[in-house]
């Protein structure tokens, strides 16, 4: 008989401990940050900010699609103070909804040219796309996108699915914008040569690391440099006909309950310390005066396509549909 009480008491006790742990969870006056992009970087910046200012950060870390979905679902009861995305056009969509507040963070004058949208959102960092190849399997990777259409690369070239990778969609759209029909011809030739289009960015890169594919077109650069640093047999180059550099935008919301905290967070994102975190992850720093990681190509040396983000935002749906028709 006593035994039964012990069981019940133990369970109640565990429950109470749990309730305690869970009510102690949320302190007041924190900055709520929804961030896409590499988890390590988002956490480093959040921790650095907490240490420096003593302001607590509630970090929601997910993909860009996830963050946008969450913002939309919460539109009636918004929550986020700061939003960080991995796609420039996505920030533009939020701006058009009227969800962003204007603020000029400290050091904004040092940003790369064009990486500040009227103080609504600014590129605190950027990633570029390139050709990633397995160094064990490919000795002579060539110099441009078009070098992967011959028989040597039959059935071993892959590309992330633009429907699942925003950066890849930006590349396809940007390339079409610059080269028109020539771009479509390239995609058709690649498709005829057995181009595999599947998955988001990370699995595409993994397939080259494991030599399931020898080459990934439009692979994300910082992931590749990260894999190289881990000792994986991969390398990459930026094709000479140009590629996409996608500034990763940071912004504060118009509904923020804690605008001072949000502003402090944006200031911190452009501080020397946070920009160094960016560089440490092999990502291109947003500030022109902060050097990229010594093991990677700097922003100035990457051949960039002429990008018109407004045109791209408008036409990417159509481009995606046509691209998918070619692939399937």
């Amino acid at each position, binding site marked *: 008989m006593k035994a039964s009480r012990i069981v019940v008491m133990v369970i109640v006790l565990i429950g109470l401990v749990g309730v305690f742990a869970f009510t102690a969870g949320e302190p007041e006056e924190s900055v*709520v940050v929804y961030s896409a992009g590499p988890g390590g970087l988002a956490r480093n910046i959040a921790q650095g900010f907490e240490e420096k200012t003593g302001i607590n950060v509630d970090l929601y870390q997910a993909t860009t699609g996830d963050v946008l979905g*969450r913002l939309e679902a919460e539109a009636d009861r918004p929550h986020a103070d700061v939003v960080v995305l991995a796609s420039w056009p996505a920030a533009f969509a939020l701006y058009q909804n009227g969800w962003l507040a204007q603020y000029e963070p400290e050091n904004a004058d040092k940003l790369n040219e064009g990486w500040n949208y009227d103080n609504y959102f600014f590129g605190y960092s950027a990633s570029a796309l390139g050709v990633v190849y397995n160094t064990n399997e490919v000795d002579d990777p060539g110099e441009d996108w078009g070098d992967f259409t011959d028989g040597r690369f039959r059935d071993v070239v892959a590309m992330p699915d633009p429907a699942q990778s925003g950066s890849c969609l930006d590349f396809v759209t940007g390339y079409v914008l610059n080269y028109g029909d020539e771009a479509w011809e390239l995609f058709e030739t690649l498709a005829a040569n057995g181009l595999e289009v599947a998955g988001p960015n990370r699995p595409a890169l993994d397939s080259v690391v494991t030599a399931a594919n020898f080459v990934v077109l439009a692979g994300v650069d910082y992931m590749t440099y990260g894999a190289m640093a881990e000792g994986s047999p991969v390398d990459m180059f930026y094709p000479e006909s140009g590629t996409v550099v996608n500034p990763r935008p940071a912004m504060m919301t118009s509904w923020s309950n804690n605008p001072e905290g949000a502003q402090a967070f944006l200031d911190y994102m452009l501080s020397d310390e946070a920009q160094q975190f960016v560089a440490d992850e092999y990502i291109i720093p947003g500030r022109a005066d902060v050097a990229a990681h010594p093991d990677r190509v700097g922003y100035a040396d990457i051949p960039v396509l002429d990008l018109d983000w407004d045109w791209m935002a408008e036409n990417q749906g159509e481009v995606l549909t046509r691209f998918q028709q070619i692939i399937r």
Partner: protein
Amino acid sequence: MRAKQTIRRHGNTAIAIALLTVLILIPVVMVLLRSFTVDRVFHPLNPIRTILEGELAEVLFNSLQLGITVVIFTTVIAAPLAYLTSKTELARARWIDVALLIPFMTPPYIATMGWILFMQPRGVVEEYLPFLSIFQPLFFSFWGVAFVMSLNLYPFIYLVIKNNLIEITGSLEDAGAVHGGSFWYRMRRIILPLLLSGYSMGALLIFVKTLAEFGTPATLGRRVGFYVFTTEIYQYTRMFPIDFARGTALASVLLITCMLIWYVQQLIANKYKYSIVGGRSGGRKMYSLGKFRFLGWAYIGLLLLVSIGVPYWSIITASLLRFWGADITLANITFDHYIELFTPGTLGGSSLWNSVYLSVIAATIAMFLGTFLGVLIVRSRGFLQRFIDSSSLLSNTVPRIVIVVGLILLWNSPWLPATIYNTAAMVAVAYVVAFLPYTVQYVKASYQQIDISLFHAAQVSGAKPGYINRRILFPLIRPGMVSGWIMTFIISVRELVASMMIRPPHIETSATFIFRQFDQGVIPLGMAMAFTTVGITVVVLLIVQGGQKQLGNG
């Protein structure tokens, strides 16, 4: 005194109805309302219209095709196994039933990840079993999704068929044999008809479970471009661009389909019920496999290898690799990922802790609430009893993703003055709502076994109701309560869809962590978490059951 008791009972009934209405009924009704009304006008065909206009007919077709295929696959897998363990000398090997708990206890998304790691290019198959790589294109298609889901679900239908076969006593078969029926004739005219009711129940259960499953379609299905109800509901309610009209339309159709199937199942169960348990029960008729026994063992061995060996081997080896894709050599083996999970402050460590404490809270609340409801259901009569009974078991019938969408619609409504949405409490509430039926059922079952005369004896001896509850009722339903607690804990700690859809910004659980690491991050770290989560559920199961046994003896 009697009047006072009646008042209290009415009070309890009212509380139960209020709780169930807020927790379960309103969310489900909100999903239906949202999908059946456009601009406040109700139309019975709205969800179908939304689906057709939204080019979602393919999703509908995909789901049905998957459901039917999985029913066929599980039947083909389970029927020979059930025959072997009920009608032949292999029935003595009781451990088989225990071993089959493993695929059943493995969360589908984890098993699927194991299979993906096994089959994917430069995975285990290509490296060590190259002759199997011809199956690779087949696996990364609809067939792979159906195959992996079948390996997860076949234990259900196996148990159903096996129990049915055991019930068919030898005398029925002997009667057939005496009248000159051959083996196949007896199969066709005696065993199969008797199996039908049980089997159709099992098959419909599998069908519903397949339609409602999120884990496998989300891990493998999305990778190969195969989209079903659950993944599309998730897409439309959680990912950019959000479209609640389509999301809830799909959710309603899924909900109604599942409800209809349950209804059909009840009809079949009532119609084709033969009373085969007479007064005298003869022994089971057994067949000897003779020299073909090794074939029976080979089949069982292969099945266990495929449904347990393959996924667990891939998960464990992947979790020990320094980075995914490296060769399995001593230099590449590391326990770092496990160490990270148990280091406070890391993302993995806090995710694991979140899952554990949220599940403990949910299990504890579900245990008390479920006991309250279960006792009330057994004690009351009439319409209200049936109402409480069916609404507290509703989460069993309604696919989890639909309930979760309902919870979001309700708790995130703009008209609520205050809400727990976007707090950790919401996650615990979702677990409680989703898994409440377990405790209710277990408590009901243990209560119904108590002989009423025990209560009468206590009353005659002058015991007050509180005393009776404390000294007779609770000790006797305790096993039911504890089972409910364990079950709720085990399922919550690994729950994927509710966690993914409802977690507040700063809370990550073990399941969402595994999912994200597998999709975008460090695969070995995710697999270490997967193995740890399954390990925790097993350890908790053993500890609590061991404790139960000790208490029972002492």
